[in-house]
């Protein structure tokens, strides 16, 4: 559709997303484990049920920890092309978003505990109506991007 944006996000994003995936797997395992335990004792069902649940957990882990982050990282790109920002994301459904810099109202950088540990930050770009996020950039890179867009808006406003 549009040309593929050049900039990739930080390589470390992969690690961060894998951590998220592991946390998600753990969180979803707890209720599964509990219910399996009770069903197992109450119903005296076969051991296969237990094995099946375990297999399911492994599948979830494979996807959330390995497959999805890998593909997502490969697809996630952004680029400032002259006077607009182009963002591309999505695994099986590719989304490209076009935001003219003139429409940008403000730019925030955000950092949760996990991102901070890896010295990463995400950048949130707001127009009057929409919000767009570039996740997991290097701290310095995120700051530069924020500064750059802010300055661009200021000079543009002065020229108007």
């Amino acid at each position: 559709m549009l040309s593929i944006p050049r900039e990739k996000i930080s390589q470390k994003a992969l690690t961060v997303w894998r951590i998220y995936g592991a946390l998600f797997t753990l969180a979803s395992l707890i209720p599964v484990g509990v219910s399996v335990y009770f069903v197992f004792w109450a119903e005296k069902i076969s051991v296969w049920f237990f094995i099946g649940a375990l297999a399911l957990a492994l599948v979830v882990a494979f996807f959330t920890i390995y497959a999805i982050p890998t593909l997502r990282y490969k697809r996630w790109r952004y680029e400032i092309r002259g006077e607009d920002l182009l963002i591309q994301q999505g695994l099986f459904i590719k989304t490209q978003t076009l935001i003219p810099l003139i429409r940008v109202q403000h730019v925030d950088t955000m950092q949760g505990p996990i991102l901070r540990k890896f010295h990463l930050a995400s950048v949130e770009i707001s127009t009057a109506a929409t919000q767009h996020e570039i996740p997991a950039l290097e701290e310095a890179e995120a700051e530069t991007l924020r500064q750059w867009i802010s300055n661009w808006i200021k000079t543009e406003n002065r020229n108007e």
Partner: protein
Amino acid sequence: MSKQRLHPISAVYLSLKNLKELIVPILIGFFAGNTGGPPGIFGIVVNYIWLAIFIYILISGIIQWKRFVYWVEEDELRIEHGLFVKKKRYIPVERIQSLDETEGLLHRSFGLVLVKVETASSGGAIANKAEAELTAITREQAKQLKKELMRRKEKIEEESEVEVEVEVPKPKPFFVMNPQELFIMASTSGGIGIVIATVFAFLSQFEELIPYEVVYERIGGIIQSATLLISILVLFGLFSAWAASVVITMFRYANYRVTQVDRDLIIESGLLEKKQWTIPMDRIQAIRMVKSPIRAPFGFVTVILESAGNVKMDSLMPGFALFPIVKEKQAVELVRHLFPQVSLDTQVQSLPKEVRIRYIIRMVLLTLIPIIVAVSILQWQGLWTLILVPFAVFLGFKQYESAGSYIGEGDIIVRFRGVQEHTLWTIRKRVQSMKVVQSIFQKRADVTHLQLFVKSGMAASRGVVRDLSSDRAKEMLEWYVPKK
């Protein structure tokens, strides 16, 4: 301008407002403390606390009213108020967008109005509500304030001599909803489609679920008459709900009129509770014409303004209904009269025939979920849900027919249908961002979804064309961000 007070009735309103803010803790305290009454000294203390809360609510409003003053000075609207802490709020005149008046029942019996001061939001991320609210002032005061603000505003804007204000008679409204239209609108708004669908589902359910012959042989007509009774009751309930919604809507939109004063649109409506909104024409982001399947056969459409700012007209409608119900021809004419550059009857470029099947399949896929659920629960009896499929095919077909786009010099139109058909007109400057979304399957067919976003109130409003050819999408993107 001298310092102005609110009308004493404000004390009542402000007290009620304080009560509303305290209602949750009060209820919790009431239910928690009502365990047969706490004994001894503790009980007495609790009672005193209740008394204190009661007195606080009573008096707080009075104090707030006494402390509240507003006046215009040095090109600012100045408000001082506060219960414990004195708060000053000075709003520069040039930032004031409009004054919106609302009249509650209490207001009307005393000839008062509630005035909300709308400011241009400074683009902050936080949704600021109306910058200031004058709970109740006399009509005379409201008029004075408006005059005062207008005078200053013009002085600032033009830096020239201000002419002496002459009472200008209010121009004639250019759109008035007549009773007949009001009734059609109220009776076709929202609910009715759902009501009809529910009734159908309900009746067919009984045909399927209850093996009448068997029942009839065993226990005669008892069950049958019972189901009949229940059906009648349910029908009656649905009908009453619908009738109530009709009456409410009629009260709300009675005397609906739109007047143009300079560059402002003034909308008035309501029978018991009169409401008035001011929409600066320069803040309008997009214009949307909506055709609902129920009204379209009668030739009626709704025209909605997407405006920046934070006033909501009606929780049921996005944006501002400029014309809640109007004949399509008239709508096009009136909009063109207001905004000469807008033609809502522009021919849009439809989509190629090849994608029609995609629209139909998409809708049919949606029906699979209820069908699968029904079949898995009711086995073969669940198959009656297959009746949904022809409806889905028909809707998909209609969606394909509606879909289209038009690219002008600086303006753009997208037309699309969910159940209602939307025609969204806007200009390049007002499009906040554009998105192309393409699945693997679409890539193969070289088509893509295109979305555009405009500001509406404090949020976004979306226009979308599905399964657009990639070339057309490119054209639209290039219209949006021209190549230098």
